[in-house]
């Protein structure tokens, strides 16, 4: 009897000890990885970390002092860069629209229970994996080579990645949809399109829109970066001003300000809209 009472507690202590050992080992490996990783990155960087850390504020100070000196130019520059900002936003918006539209199709075709061709679901899933894995810059640069500059290559590149990223999330949402409405519609002779449109879409629309809004936030950033690599929009203006260097730092500050304000404002409103969508109108 006494043995039976001690056994579980001994087991428990052994378990705890083993867990602690594993935890400690993982911690040591993690710290070693971080430390050696930092060393490697530091060694392969042009300027070292300890050298650079003292100069982190040099560049901000330089551009801010120039902007402070020529502060009268700022409103004009802010106004001047609005068209490119709109282009950047347009790229993000259109690619989110196209991407989420395609993602809906891919998601429905790759969700168990909803797919039009159940056998092909793995094919669509793999396709989405590949689209998701493709960094935007790859497609953008190749398309710039083929189509020339302009916003269209960036738009296609972001839409491509968006399709993969949203398709996976959409399909996870659709997997949890109630199938009863779909069956009901099927019993009255609705075709696949009608079943999806009337049976599934109303259930998943709030979550899907919430994910699409989140993607829009991400895509604004992506579109600004792609502009920097050479595809129009405010990123391109930033690059040209930076290449000019001193004398145009007031422009750089204006662009930084515009980007920062836009991203913050969009984040804020989309945060609220998403809370309303997912929690059903009660959130502020």
């Amino acid at each position: 009897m006494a043995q039976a009472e001690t056994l579980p507690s001994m087991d428990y202590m052994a378990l705890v000890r083993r867990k602690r050992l594993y935890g400690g080992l993982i911690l040591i490996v993690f710290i070693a990885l971080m430390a050696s990783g930092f060393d490697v990155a530091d060694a392969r960087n042009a300027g070292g970390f300890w050298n650079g850390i003292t100069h982190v504020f040099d560049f901000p100070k330089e551009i801010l002092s120039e902007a402070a000196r020529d502060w009268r130019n700022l409103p004009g520059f802010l106004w001047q860069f609005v068209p490119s900002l709109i282009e950047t936003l347009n790229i993000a918006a259109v690619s989110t629209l196209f991407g989420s539209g395609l993602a809906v199709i891919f998601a429905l075709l790759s969700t168990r229970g909803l797919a039009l061709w159940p056998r092909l679901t793995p094919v669509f899933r793999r396709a989405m994996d590949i689209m998701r894995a493709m960094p935007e810059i790859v497609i953008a640069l190749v398309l710039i080579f083929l189509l020339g500059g302009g916003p269209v290559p960036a738009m296609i590149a972001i839409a491509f990645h968006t399709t993969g990223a949203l398709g996976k999330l959409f399909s996870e949402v659709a997997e949890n949809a109630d199938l009863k409405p779909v069956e009901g519609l099927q019993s009255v002779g609705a075709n696949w399109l009608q079943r999806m449109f009337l049976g599934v879409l109303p259930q998943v629309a709030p979550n899907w829109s919430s994910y699409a809004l989140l993607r829009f936030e991400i895509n604004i950033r992506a579109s600004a970066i792609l502009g920097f690599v050479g595809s129009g929009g405010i990123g391109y203006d930033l690059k040209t001003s930076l290449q000019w260097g001193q004398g145009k730092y007031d422009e750089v500050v204006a662009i930084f300000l515009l980007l920062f304000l836009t991203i913050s404002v969009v984040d804020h409103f989309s945060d609220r809209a998403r809370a309303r969508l997912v929690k059903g109108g009660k959130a502020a």
Partner: protein
Amino acid sequence: MSAITTNATTTADLRETVTRAFARRKMQALAVPVLILAYLVYVFFAFDVPGIAGRMRPDNAAVLLSDFWSYKTHVTRDNRTGEVSVAVEGERKGTWPPGTAPDWVTLGDETRVALPDGGRITYIPDGAVIARAGFGTIEVHSTGRAIALTLPEGAAMPDWISASNTRVNISGEGWRFSMTKARTETFRYFPGWELFFFTLDSPFHGKSVGELIALALWEPRLTPAHSNIAAMASDFWNNAMWRHGDVFAAMGETVLMAFLGTMGAGLIAFPLAFVAASNFAPARAIRLTLRRLFDFLRGVDGLIWTVILSRAFGPGPLTGSLAILLTDTGTFGKTFSEALENIDGKQVEGIQSTGANALQRARFGVIPQVAPVILSQLLYYLESNTRSATIIGALVGGGIGLLLTQAIITQKDWEEVSYYIILIIAMVMVMDSLSGWIRRKIIKG
């Protein structure tokens, strides 16, 4: 009586409101697609989509596609010195050693190049003779200033020849010939990525898979210093044409950027999240300041951080990882503190009732609740940052992103671009499944 009339009016009212609501719904359902359509029409013109047809470069597409699945070998004669060289893609690293050539080239006083469609090109001292199957013999002579083209008698100028005083171009199925004053050159196209495994200076070049296995396992050493398998590995790794070693090091750099950035951000954000969570915050003012700081870090965005940081740290992977670190500290600070605010207070109370202090309450009451959320966030971002690190690498000059942009900018090594793209996709997918696997292991087990 009156009760019935009110009832009737309410019914009528109700019907009216319902009908109106339906009408409004219909309008809305119609208005959204119309608005989207209007927006797309506006964008169609704002993006100058009609102008794309003019800017499009179908010839570039042809170059890209043919480069993707094939390579070309140049047989070049320098017309001034008379020297003939054979080189894969015309690159010095892919040049055949002097006096050697593939079997379709005959070196000698007159270099002869066999063409895939049965024709033959012979380099004569002042030009070249092209025997084209089914057409006849074309002669190209360099006569002092100009380059003269002689077609077979009675033949009209075909569309596969373009000739001017300074240059003659002739193209055929799988080959191309070009002559200028400076050089006479023939290109032959072959499928595949030549020299992918071994360059021409490696003793293993041109061996079949079977021969290579035999060499690796039992055949005598080709180089006395190393075993065959080690020599093979080193020849592959140090392949001058494809630079596998450098490419893999660059991929490691990219993953390193993502790892350092994500984990560093997590380490910084975790303690800060306690201070920024309403149920742990020591003071309201500190909490709100931290929240604003997180918003600021996120709002400034990776692009701006990259620009600022590369001024201080110079190009390289460290700059990239710091840019990721700064942006993600903002993101993690927000999500971690939200997770902390959503914990169940009962467990903390339970721990408190045993007399635990604040640190013990956090360790045994709070962390077990938030650990799964935080870990899955970290792992998810690790995967997504691998992709971002490719892009940031292109900006700051580090990792596979840099190699990719360099290869694209030169606009000729598209087979290398394809190789990098395939590797990047594989890298992101591996990171994706790795982070998914760890997530399942840690959170379930």
